[in-house]
């Protein structure tokens, strides 16, 4: 007699944010019966790829997760590994890292505002159509994006999947002439960015008041980028090491990207959440500029995200100028690293929201286990909640094409990192009743 063998296979499916998405929407009368934002990109399994790799390979590997926010992946990773190895890279490296991050915010925000989101708000299907009527604005977007890329390359050696960052600091620091050239470019970019803030605030943005929970990193002395505690608009205030005790990642059966919840509810990460929670950390000059726009933060209108992005872009340019004006290029680019076994955490603010990493290493510094929680998966549940509310406010009795466009606009507004986020939406709509 043979005993029945039971096998249970559990495959954790983790880092997978770039991909294809669809929206399934069922409307019954004037009610949304079901709504599902599906991401069906095959899992990318980066966390498993990292297992067994050496600590020094991690920054270059995680940079490949995303073509638009590689700096964020590198920064969360190096902070986590430095915590494992009990390394303090010092104030100079910390400032260079802030500069590196500014480059990513500038290029990512410029790209999203001008090429992805703006056509929605000025009545065009694409940036190529929009450029006919708004050539100066599109040129501005391309200039700002190039500026951000140049800033990333200054420390990363190249703007795509940069290779300049390492655990302990950077492989090299810029030269004096590189710093001088970059400062001149930033000065010109600052003018563009100031105009951009006013331009985004002047767009005909839908008025869509919603209640939502904002979550971001928060630092007592600076607008959050590379370090701080995790805070929410509902009173959460925890060290990043306690993320797992409050946030839960779970698998929705229709999505290959994990959803995330905070105390069982959806939450928002990204520029609007950051500005809602950290307005007072912005310089007085930028706060005055915001006041001039007539838009108040904290804001409950998700469509103010484009304005928040523009404000952050301006902030990143000014912050980069400050860092470069005070830069010490004589210091060692990195501190020595002695690997050891342990667990470490890193949480930084990617352009589209907080990016949390956890690494466990053995005594040689090889990765035993990695966990990466990217911003788009954190925003998934919030996007669905927003779609429900926003479509209801918009009017469910509208033509299918109008509903589709509005739904696409809502989703794009989050700057999701899904590989066809520009017009990615395949909407399957079922209408029942009247």
């Amino acid at each position, binding site marked *: 007699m043979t005993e029945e063998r039971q096998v249970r296979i559990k495959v954790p499916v983790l880092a997978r944010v*770039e991909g294809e998405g669809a929206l399934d929407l069922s409307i019954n009368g004037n009610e949304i019966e079901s709504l599902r934002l599906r991401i069906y990109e095959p899992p990318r399994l980066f966390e498993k790829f990292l297992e067994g790799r050496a600590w020094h390979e991690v920054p270059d590997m995680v940079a*490949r997760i995303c*073509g*638009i926010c590689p700096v964020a992946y590198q920064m969360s990773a190096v902070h986590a590994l430095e915590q494992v190895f009990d390394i303090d890279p010092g104030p100079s490296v910390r400032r260079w890292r802030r500069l590196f991050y500014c480059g990513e915010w500038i290029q990512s925000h410029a*790209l999203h505002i001008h*090429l*992805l989101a703006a056509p929605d708000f000025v009545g065009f299907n*694409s*940036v*190529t159509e929009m*450029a*006919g009527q708004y*050539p100066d604005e*599109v*040129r501005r977007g*391309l*200039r700002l*994006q*190039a500026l951000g*890329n140049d800033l990333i390359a200054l420390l990363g050696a*190249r*703007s*795509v*999947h940069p290779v300049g960052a390492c655990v302990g600091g950077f492989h090299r620091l810029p030269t004096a002439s590189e710093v001088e050239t970059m400062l001149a470019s930033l000065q010109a970019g600052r003018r563009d960015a100031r105009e951009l803030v006013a331009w985004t605030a002047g767009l005909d943005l839908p008025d869509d008041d919603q209640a939502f929970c904002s979550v971001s990193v928060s630092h007592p002395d600076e607008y959050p980028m590379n370090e701080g505690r995790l805070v929410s608009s509902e009173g959460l205030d925890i060290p990043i090491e306690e993320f797992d005790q409050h946030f839960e990642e779970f698998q929705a059966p229709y999505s290959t990207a994990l959803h995330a919840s905070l105390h069982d509810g959806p939450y928002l990460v990204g520029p609007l959440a950051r500005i809602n929670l950290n307005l007072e950390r912005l310089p007085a000059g930028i706060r005055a500029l915001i006041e001039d726009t007539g838009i108040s933060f904290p804001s409950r209108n998700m469509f103010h995200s484009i304005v928040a992005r523009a404000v952050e872009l301006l902030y990143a340019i000014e912050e980069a100028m400050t860092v470069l004006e005070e830069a010490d290029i004589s210091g060692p680019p990195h501190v020595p690293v002695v690997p050891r076994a342990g667990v470490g955490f890193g949480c930084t603010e990617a352009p589209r929201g907080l990016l949390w990493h956890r690494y466990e290493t053995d005594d040689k510094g090889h990765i035993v286990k990695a966990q990466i929680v990217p911003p788009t998966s954190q925003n998934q549940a919030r996007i669905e909640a927003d779609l429900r509310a926003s479509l209801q406010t918009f009017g469910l009795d509208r033509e299918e094409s109008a509903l589709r466009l509005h739904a696409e606009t809502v989703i794009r507004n989050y700057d999701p*990192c*899904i*590989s*066809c*986020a*520009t*017009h990615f939406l395949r909407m399957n709509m079922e209408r029942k009743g009247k």
Partner: protein
Amino acid sequence: MTPVRIIGIGSPHGADQAGWLVADALQRSALPARLPAGTVSFSQCVFPAQLPQLVAGCDLAILIDAVRAEPGTVVEVDSGDLTRRKELHSTHGIGVGEALALIPVLTDQPPRVVLIGVGVDAEDGACSMEDVNRTLPRVRELMEAPLREFLQTATGT
């Protein structure tokens, strides 16, 4: 700013680097010396959105990008076909087709654009120098007429 620009499109990785490698090989070849000094420059394009800026002010832009085709082969791409495509597959910006459509809108005097595709095995994902070198004679052939016409116009001969 040179009147002729040869631009490799791609990234430093795998098959996607084919355009960069071909442009780099052309830069190291006898080609630049054959042209009057200051006529031609070479660059790499990572994000297609950079293209309008990279070609602004030039007369002839020769773009080289990887395409899905037999490795070592060369395809002259009809840029009109690309710009007419409506479907977008890029998360993070715009593709080559859209960038080409933006050039006449965003540049005061749009240059002549020649788009050359070099075949890569997208499934394999690799790019060998042997395949790159095999493309060079045909790439040079495709560049010959546009360069000759540019020189005739520029020198009035």
